[in-house]
């Protein structure tokens, strides 16, 4: 039914073109025009996801909606797109997120509105491109190209230390990706083109695999971010405008995990197996140490940023603990469950953290402060907002019934099969995340109204509660009915697991 339409290309290029139109919408006197163009584009893009979802065949792990055109024949680079169960969800996730961000930025952004909207739309196109590319160079182009709008977004609309944060963000991620390019070029010499799927079949020696794994790891670990290369994230998150933080947390971090799933594990299975121990240790450090760091934060955005790092540590743990599970039990069933838990955790984190960043944005808009101490008793003045924020806080903690629970539960369950020690460390997250999240919540929302600023606060307005209600719905929906997600990527995860555990030696 939809095979004739280049659906995947449309989802990439509609926002990019919309963004370019937006850029020329005029200066701030015509801000509303820019906002409307942006909203319309984001909405069209959301509509395009409907046929994508309906036309997607969940029963196969093959790439679907494939488009393939020669791009640079001389280098063997193709413009090749396709989605499987993992990427189709990421594509839909990014479309939803951008749509919400456009609405959420309707009022708070008042300076250079046209450029702001343009940056987000173009970024959206690039991110979808990352998830849809089947060609390694095309992937790399989107992966790096996205840095430009994000750099501008942090630097132009960010907080007081925005210049520092934006340059740090750019250089960190640029540094990480550089070696990946070399690894890709090296893999290319072993095959005939840059097709990622053909990389899966390349035979590599252990030494080659380890080098390639490390090159990939640098790129992805910076993006995820893993301890100890996470330090750009708190700065970037804190200084970015609310919309930028949401995109960072909900999408950009996911790219790192997506990269591990798409590149590291299937291309270098033996190196992944070999280095799984190291990766698990790094993940556990992120889960425990970073969570402790989060407890001590006084800036709300910083706190949520650290909580992001801790949660992403959980996802990387899920990716690599499977090797230990397979080594111990010998069957794939538990590994399967764990990896699926990782996927759910990743998607759930996008919604709950994204929502919390938006929430902080709402508070910042009213009081122009992100310091926890500046608030107190907000629940008296903004009851609706307090209720919604409570829901997201609990999802972040992993309360049963919210999306956060499903992923953490599956991962902890799976890691039991690998080792009790891993499980004990991993499970501390339940305590620690409750500590920092709820303590922050208590200090901001409960107690007496302390300052005149809080006294003057008013409850949510139309664009704000629209966005937060949609997110609240998603958080509960995934929590109650995770099968909606699981059924989509079930087959693809199975295929991935098979590739990742088959030795290439």
């Amino acid at each position, binding site marked *: 039914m939809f095979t004739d339409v280049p659906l995947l290309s449309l989802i990439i290029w509609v926002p990019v073109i919309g963004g370019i139109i937006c*850029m020329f919408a005029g200066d701030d006197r015509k801000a509303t025009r820019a906002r409307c163009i942006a909203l319309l584009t984001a909405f069209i893009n959301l509509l395009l996801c409907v046929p994508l979802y309906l036309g997607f065949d969940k029963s196969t792990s093959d790439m679907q909606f494939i488009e393939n055109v*020669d*791009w*640079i*024949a*001389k*280098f063997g680079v193709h413009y090749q797109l396709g989605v499987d169960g993992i990427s189709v969800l990421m594509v839909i996730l990014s479309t939803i997120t951008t749509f919400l961000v456009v609405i959420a930025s309707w009022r708070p952004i008042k300076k*250079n509105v046209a*450029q702001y909207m343009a940056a987000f739309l173009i970024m959206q196109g690039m991110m979808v491109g990352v998830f849809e590319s089947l060609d390694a*160079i095309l992937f*790399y*182009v989107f992966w*790096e*190209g996205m*840095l*430009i709008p994000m*750099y*501008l977004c942090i*630097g*132009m609309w960010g907080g007081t230390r*925005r*210049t520092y944060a*934006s*340059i740090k963000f*750019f*250089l960190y991620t*640029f*540094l990480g990706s*550089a*070696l990946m*390019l*070399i690894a890709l*070029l*090296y893999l*290319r*010499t072993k095959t005939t083109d840059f097709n990622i799927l053909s990389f899966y079949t390349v035979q590599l020696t252990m030494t080659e695999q380890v080098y390639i794994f490390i090159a990939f790891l640098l790129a992805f670990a910076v993006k995820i971010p893993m301890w100890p290369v996470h330090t750009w994230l708190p700065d970037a998150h804190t200084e970015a405008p609310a919309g930028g933080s949401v995109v960072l947390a909900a999408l950009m971090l996911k790219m790192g995990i997506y990269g591990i799933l798409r590149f590291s594990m299937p291309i270098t299975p033996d190196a992944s197996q070999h280095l799984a121990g190291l990766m698990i240790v790094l993940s556990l450090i992120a889960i425990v140490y970073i969570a402790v760091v989060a407890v001590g934060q006084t800036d709300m955005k910083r706190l949520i940023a650290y909580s992001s790092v801790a949660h992403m540590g959980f996802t990387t743990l899920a990716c690599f603990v499977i090797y230990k599970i397979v080594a111990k039990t010998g069957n794939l069933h538990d590994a399967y469950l764990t990896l699926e838990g990782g996927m759910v955790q990743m998607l759930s984190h996008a919604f709950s953290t994204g929502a919390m960043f938006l929430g902080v944005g709402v508070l910042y808009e009213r009081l122009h402060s992100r310091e926890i101490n500046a608030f107190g008793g907000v629940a008296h003045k903004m009851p609706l907002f307090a209720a919604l924020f409570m829901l997201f806080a609990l999802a972040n903690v992993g309360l049963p019934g919210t999306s956060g629970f499903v992923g953490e539960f599956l991962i902890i369950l799976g890691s039991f099969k690998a080792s009790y020690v891993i499980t004990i460390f991993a499970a501390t997250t339940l305590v620690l995340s409750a500590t920092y999240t709820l303590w922050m919540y208590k200090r901001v929302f409960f107690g007496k109204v302390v300052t005149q600023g809080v006294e003057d606060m008013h409850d949510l307005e139309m664009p704000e509660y629209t966005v937060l209600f949609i997110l609240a719905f998603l958080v509960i929906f995934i929590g109650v009915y995770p099968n909606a997600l699981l059924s989509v990527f079930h087959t693809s995860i199975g295929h991935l697991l098979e590739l990742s555990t088959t030795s290439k030696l």
Partner: protein
Amino acid sequence: MNFTAPDFLPAIGEMFTLGMICVVMLAYLFFDKQNRGITYFLTQITLLGAAVIAISLYGHPTEITFDGSFILDPESLLLKIFILLSSVFVLMYSRPYIRDNEIAHGEFYLLILFSALGMQVLVSAYSFLTLYLGLEVFSLPLYAMIALRHNRPVCQEAAMKYFIMGAIASGFLLYGMSLIYGACQSLNLQEIVSMMSLSVDSQPMMLTVGLVFIAAGALFKLGVAPFHMWVPDVYEGAPNAMTLFISTAPKLAGFALLLRLLVEAMPALFPQWQYLLIAVAVLSMAVGNIIAIAQDNIKRMLAYSSIANMGYMLLGLIAGTPRGYGSATFYIIAYVIMSLGAFGIITILSRKGFELEKINDFKGLNSRNPWLALMMLLIMFSMAGVPPSVGFFAKVGVLESLVRADIVWLPALALVFAIIGAYYYLRVVKVMYFDEPIEKTPVILESFDAQLAISINGLAVFFLGLFPTTMIELCQKAFLA
């Protein structure tokens, strides 16, 4: 003795340029007073005409004429086309600058024409004599050009420095050539190739010393470390329009010189010059990228960036494969397009009595003229090698050819330097977009030419990044024919 007239067809572009130079000179003498535009338009017609000739000759089979001292091949035509087109853009950018600063415009245009003539001869030269001839014809007008603003001592200093350094480079080159001539008894590149493969074992010392001098001379002209000292000083001292010119077309000519002398004349000495170029390339990338960080003057910064970029270009030659040479060609063309845009913006932002020199002069450009800022943004990210831009594919090309030649450590090192380099390009973007402007008045470009040129230029950087296929094919074909 029979005399047969040589085939003049391969040199028809050069002859056309020379003829038109006489016409322009006369027109400037007699008609310029009544109609100030005439010299400019005739100059543009000359350059465009020569470019059209080069394009129409494209596809012509390779032909060597004038007793083996002049060659017509796809490689020379490709470089000629870009030399001429970039000169056209230089003129478009610098016209308002020349007018506002009351520089003798006729002389400026004529010097550019002479220089373009020399570069055309150089890229087509196929013997030591014609190579040297072309080199001098293109270099001398550059020295004079820088000195055209005679009321500024700093320009005089730059011209003098450039002249002396250029003379030393020429000296090196000539001495090297004489050694090679001694060993091979020929000035003709074709004969040198065959003689050298015979004598490479019998006279290794003489050939190697000759090679080192020749390479030093050519690398001097390109401005790579450790022969780079003149580059920042000359870029800084020269008036902006002149910096624009010397940072673009002469790079292509210098590249042609290196290509003819090392790649085509001395394939027998490949192992020797490969090591030489590796050292030079690593040093250039390091020096260029690291020192550029400390610069406050944008012209100096771009000068160091050019040193670094020449280092990246050399990586393609180091690979030693036709693919590598093609990638190096693509790299240098991409660099010239970017440099043209960057210095073009600097030139058109300089007004009467205001020479744009500091990076901070770009402060808040986004709120004063968003279109110019956007173009500069594209160019800066392209220079940093961020996709989707032509600079990214240029880098990928040279790195890919190295990986294919089984040299993996060098591309990794090159990328590390590229990341260091990204910082100073980002700084320009930061200044334009994140900082508040010093003066709030919008920048309005009066000149239509300059506006058109920068738009084409900036968008070319972007679109060549999205659709690089044609350019890459063209560059690769030049070495596979």
